[in-house]
């Protein structure tokens, strides 16, 4: 089998692109876990609903794709707010309850979406058709756009966290819960914000994934697994960790798939999780 430069470059771009979608789902997951101590098992479904909302707005209602993504980001963030207020806040910190409720929610959401939309594979229109020609190597435009979008959103999140009062309060809440309370920070406000932001980001991730690949109501499960892998690799609650974890996962998956076939995509995350948990449980950028 002849693998040329073209294949490797495309594979890396592909990996960065997939990595970008993993980062978008992983950021929300890691922040929610770091700040609220909840593993949000329905977060993959939030990602999926984000994608299906874009499908509904763009393919079924004829809106411009980018506008649909923007709207979906907002509506999915609102969905996150509702989920937090109705399903998570009443549980008052009982970890096992969170696991049960969010797992149940994930099943319900999958079924609802499956019933609402007809059978058959669906796809979103391309973000940007065609490819760039870089010294003879063809690079898909839509993948580059996806990478850029993921990068911009991550930077926006980082800026929010480091430069606004609420962002700093969120980081503080993750580092010392009582210390944060003693500065007058309302934990319910923090929870609502982090779930809303995480959900909005996941929605864009879903839209990017749905544009480049297919949509289906069960796409959330795999996405969730990638998100978990990313947290283990990158470190809990860490933004740089989530970015590093996502990109590493994406690129390694893609390059290995080039040489060894696409089963790598399923096996690799699991292997990485095991390796990291044994040798570096706190992840690349994690604390304690």
């Amino acid at each position, binding site marked *: 089998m002849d693998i040329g430069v073209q294949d490797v470059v495309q594979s890396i771009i592909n990996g960065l692109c997939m990595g970008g979608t993993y980062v978008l789902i992983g950021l929300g997951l890691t922040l929610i876990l770091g700040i609220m101590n909840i593993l949000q098992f329905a977060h993959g479904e939030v990602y999926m609903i984000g994608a299906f909302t874009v499908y509904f707005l763009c393919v079924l209602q004829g809106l411009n794709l980018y506008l649909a993504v923007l709207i979906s980001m907002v509506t999915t963030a609102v969905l996150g707010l509702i989920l937090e207020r109705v399903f998570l806040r009443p549980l008052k910190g009982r970890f096992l309850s969170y696991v049960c409720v969010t797992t149940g929610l994930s099943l319900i959401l999958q079924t609802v979406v499956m019933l609402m939309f007809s059978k058959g594979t669906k796809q979103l229109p391309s973000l940007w058709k065609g490819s760039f020609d870089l010294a003879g190597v063809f690079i898909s435009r839509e993948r580059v756009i996806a990478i850029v979008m993921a990068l911009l959103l991550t930077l926006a999140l980082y800026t929010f966290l480091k430069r606004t009062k609420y962002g700093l309060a969120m980081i503080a809440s993750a580092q010392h819960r009582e210390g944060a309370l003693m*500065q*007058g920070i309302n934990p319910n406000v923090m929870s609502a914000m982090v779930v809303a932001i995480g959900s909005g980001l996941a929605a864009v991730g879903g839209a990017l994934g749905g544009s480049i690949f297919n949509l289906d109501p069960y796409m959330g499960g795999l996405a969730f697994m990638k998100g978990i892998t990313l947290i283990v690799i990158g470190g809990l609650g860490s933004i740089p960790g989530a970015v590093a974890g996502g990109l590493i996962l994406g690129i390694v998956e893609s390059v290995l798939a080039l040489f060894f076939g696409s089963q790598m995509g399923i096996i690799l995350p699991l292997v990485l999780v095991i390796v990291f948990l044994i040798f570096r449980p706190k992840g690349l950028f994690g*604390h304690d």
Partner: protein
Amino acid sequence: MLLEVKDLWVRYGGAEVLKGVSLEVEEGSVVSLLGANGAGKSTTLRAITGLVVPSSGEIWFDGERIDGESPARIVSRGIRHVLEGRGLFPYMSVLENLKVGAYLVKDKAQVQRALEDIFTHFPVLKERRNQQARTLSGGEQQMLTIARALMGCPRLLLLDEPSLGLSPMMVREIGKMIRNVHERGVTVLLVEQNTRLALDVADTCYVLETGSVAACGLTRELMKSDLVRRAYLGL
């Protein structure tokens, strides 16, 4: 009376940690709460700021009843609690810790002024402002956590064992800091195992023994009683 605790009972699981504790803190004063380990001193402070919910009893601040309110609500009334163990945000910088201390302050100019004020009074913190809080020495961390509480311009400052783990020289510095804070008009309720420090700074003292108030009164009066001095103050 700025703060009144009336017949406070706190139960953890089956144990009674506070059994009918009452105390009063006058505005502008420094009050010390003394006692051995496990006497219930920290629990009293935690009940005041809502980290612990009382089983019964009342807590009044500035004429309003505050027991049962959420910690964030109580803090917004002008009470700051410097936690036992400092409660710093370890991976945030000194500056970021201070900024979070001003979370409730709406006026940005006021936050700037408070920051400059802190840096003038605590030059070490200014020097280390971009360092992560966990890299500071014990004494510097204590300074930071008190400074952070001051960023919120509190009326009442609760200090939980500020001298813990500090050298005698640092303890004297803490004493100076407390007197300084007092001079600015902040009322202080100090919990301490270090009797020397507590008596040095306080006008009034309460002594807790296994969840109840065993003795209380003006510091100078307590010092006059041989019994009190020997039994409770270890002097």
